[in-house]
């Protein structure tokens, strides 16, 4: 048995939080705007990121949790032991943790939550995260043992997702409208279509947050978002939807602009099974036809980091492969001619609603036209996109930002909508999943990145930036978005 000590890090964190809390004696309420309203408040039964933005680490906590820098630290589990073969995790739970309804959080709740995600009729949108779990066993009220079918190097990372938070059987019935968790904030009120209010939880097991109340407001229209911020109706806008207005906020001393990174790899997804894209030369031609910087400048007003593979540049295992698909229209034309399409090709480009797709799509279509690829733009809503592109695979090209963290594994699924079917890659992923040594994992991840870049599976465009606007006095906001979350516990007002 190998013991993993995490206590010291946790106490360092706690110290940091105390320092922050003692600084802030000023304002204790905050109004945070976001574009989309959550459909309901159960992060364990829907994919909507808006749910996580409101509840993650605020209302609900998991055994482990993400920090703003993307690291995974202990949450409700204060420490754990991993068996030598990597298949058994024994979690030691924190003592004295209660749910907002006063009931104690113990090993039974952990078992209930994980079993619930695993069952046949589970509505968990990320059920695959739990797929390797063979059994969950209660050892004593504060100890729980999870047995995996095979070692999984991602397991602690997976448990940090919002979809893996700990819920109680007592309050599961109306969790969607009245969420009861263990977090530092309790659910206050939801005026549907307008706002959600959270209040500080005086019984919280950890340090008391600086904020007393937080109100989330939902403003979907980019013009309205700009006006609300300018009129100072709101204090923070998470993921500000109009990058063209950011210079104005930067120049205004009343505001601060936070530019960070998300887990969103924005790609020109290509239907690998649909001719002519089943020919690697055609896909390579696509890659060389694209001028990433022009797209970032034109569609995102300069915000975004070019990527050459499906991996986040801020991850230590990232390999810069942008050179592999440098902008070279002449080469693209030559490749097309070589593949037998000297006269060019015609295809479709399906664009979902976000501006990265709609604006980026116009630019990409123009760039492709220069090398003789005529892409017909088809604007779709998300529901249509899911139906015809994602499920029906009825598309040539589409632009999507894949926002799940560490999701290179989707390339190992031949039935995934871009239909990349490579035995080499699938074997590589199997090896990666059973590897726990960090160094070895980095090496394998590097290989995986190189493989999908060399196969030109998709056009890799840029890492989506996280653009936040806040009043100057707000501190502790996450700059990056390792997961969709607005971590209220760290937020405070400066004097």
């Amino acid at each position: 048995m190998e013991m993993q000590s995490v206590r010291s890090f946790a106490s360092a964190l706690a110290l940091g939080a105390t320092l922050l809390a003692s600084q802030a004696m000023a304002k204790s309420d905050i109004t945070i705007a976001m574009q989309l309203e959550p459909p309901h408040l159960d992060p364990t039964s829907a994919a909507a990121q808006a749910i996580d933005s409101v509840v993650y680490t605020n209302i609900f906590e998991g055994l482990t949790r993400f920090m703003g820098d993307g690291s995974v630290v202990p949450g409700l589990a204060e420490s754990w032991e991993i068996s030598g073969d990597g298949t058994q995790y024994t979690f030691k739970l924190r003592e004295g943790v209660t749910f907002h309804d006063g009931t104690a959080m113990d090993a039974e709740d952990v078992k209930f939550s994980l079993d619930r995600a695993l069952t046949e009729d589970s509505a968990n949108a990320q059920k695959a995260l739990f797929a390797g779990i063979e059994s969950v066993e209660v050892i004593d009220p504060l100890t729980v043992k999870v047995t995996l079918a095979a070692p999984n190097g991602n397991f602690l990372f997976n448990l940090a997702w919002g979809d893996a938070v700990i819920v109680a059987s007592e309050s599961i019935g109306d969790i969607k409208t009245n969420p009861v968790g263990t977090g530092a904030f309790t659910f206050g009120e939801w005026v549907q279509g307008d706002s959600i209010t959270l209040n500080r939880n005086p019984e919280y097991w950890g340090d008391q947050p600086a904020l007393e109340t937080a109100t989330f407001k939902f403003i979907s229209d980019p013009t309205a978002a700009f006006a609300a911020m300018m009129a100072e109706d709101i204090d923070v806008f998470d993921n500000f939807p109009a990058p063209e207005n950011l210079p104005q906020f930067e120049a205004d001393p009343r505001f601060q602009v936070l530019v960070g990174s998300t887990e969103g790899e924005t790609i020109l997804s290509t239907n690998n099974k649909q001719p002519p894209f089943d020919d690697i030369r055609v896909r390579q031609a696509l890659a060389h036809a694209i001028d990433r910087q022009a797209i970032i400048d034109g569609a995102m007003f300069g915000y975004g980091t070019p990527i050459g593979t499906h991996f986040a540049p801020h991850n230590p295992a990232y390999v810069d492969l942008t050179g592999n698909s440098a902008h070279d229209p002449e080469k693209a034309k030559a490749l097309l001619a070589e593949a037998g399409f000297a006269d060019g090709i015609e295809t479709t480009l399906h664009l979902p609603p976000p501006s990265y797709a709609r604006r980026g799509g116009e630019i990409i279509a123009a760039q492709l036209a220069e090398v003789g690829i005529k892409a017909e733009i088809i604007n779709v809503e998300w529901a249509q996109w899911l139906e015809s592109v994602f499920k029906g695979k009825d598309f040539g090209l589409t632009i999507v930002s894949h926002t799940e963290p560490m999701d290179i594994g989707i390339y190992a699924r031949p039935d995934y909508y871009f239909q990349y079917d490579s035995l080499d890659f699938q074997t590589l992923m199997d090896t990666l999943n059973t590897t726990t040594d960090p160094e070895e994992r980095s090496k394998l991840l590097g290989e995986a990145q190189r493989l999908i870049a060399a196969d030109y599976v998709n056009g890799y465009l840029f890492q989506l930036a996280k653009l936040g606007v806040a009043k100057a006095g707000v501190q502790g906001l996450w700059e990056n978005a390792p997961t969709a979350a607005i971590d209220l516990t760290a937020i405070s007002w400066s004097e």
Partner: protein
Amino acid sequence: MLRYSLKRLLSLIISLAVASVVIFGVIEVAPGDPASFMLGVNAQPDTLAALRAELGLDVSKLQRYFNWVGGMLTGDFGTSYTYRTPVSQMIADRLWVSLPLALYALTLSTLIAFPAGIYAAARRGKPGDLAVMGATQLGIAVPNFWFAMMLVLIFAINLRWFNAGGFVGWETGFWTGLHSLTLPAIALALPQAAILARVMRSSLLDILGEDFMRTARAKGLSRRQALWRHGVRNALIPVLTIIGLQFSFLLAGSIIIEQVFYLPGLGRLVFQAISARDLIVVESVVMLLVFAVITVNFLVDLAYAAVDPRLRSRT
């Protein structure tokens, strides 16, 4: 009168039945599945199937249609797929914003249009008339969301008299509630007022040429007295018809204004529900609006018939 009323009632029921089929058909035909929308790209097939069963989407379309209509007849509008709250409650909540907003806008538009229309008619062809007509032309041409943005820029961002959007809720008091609806109400009212003022003016000009107006003048009333005592009252009939139409437009058609001012009203509810494929919400809200319009028309028909007996023998 009774036979006439029954006939009208029958046509009301037929209209509603046809509307329900059309609404259901159009909305169900649109591609997209509520369950896949909610579960996103990593959902597994068994998870999707479980959710579809939970939402009652696993039965045939015909069955769903009859469940929906049957529910509505007993006052049950169904439960929203995404919000998981009863649709009737959601509609009631949103009406508390949309209905007052529509009434507020209608009041403002009437308050602007009546004096403007009467003034223009009284000064036909003179500079005052031309000024009013020019302004109304502009009011009709410029879309209400542009007005909305200008109002926000001036009164919310620069002058800080109002919030840029949002609704504070009636529980904070009637006047604060009204205050937060003022900018959207003005933005909605201006184009409507422009239309109404033109109708008021032309209707009044028609009346001014009538024989009874000449008689009134002959009896010794001044131009102004005749205008106010006999002209305006008779000119009101077409104006009231327009106001009735505008009200249903304001209630159902303020989607863009509700987006610009992020108001939790009916329009925004429908907008969100359409993109989330929350079919039951879209169907029920649209059906309710159709019901409201058809019922208002039915009552207007009855009222006309009560006033004008000639209408009863017709149709």
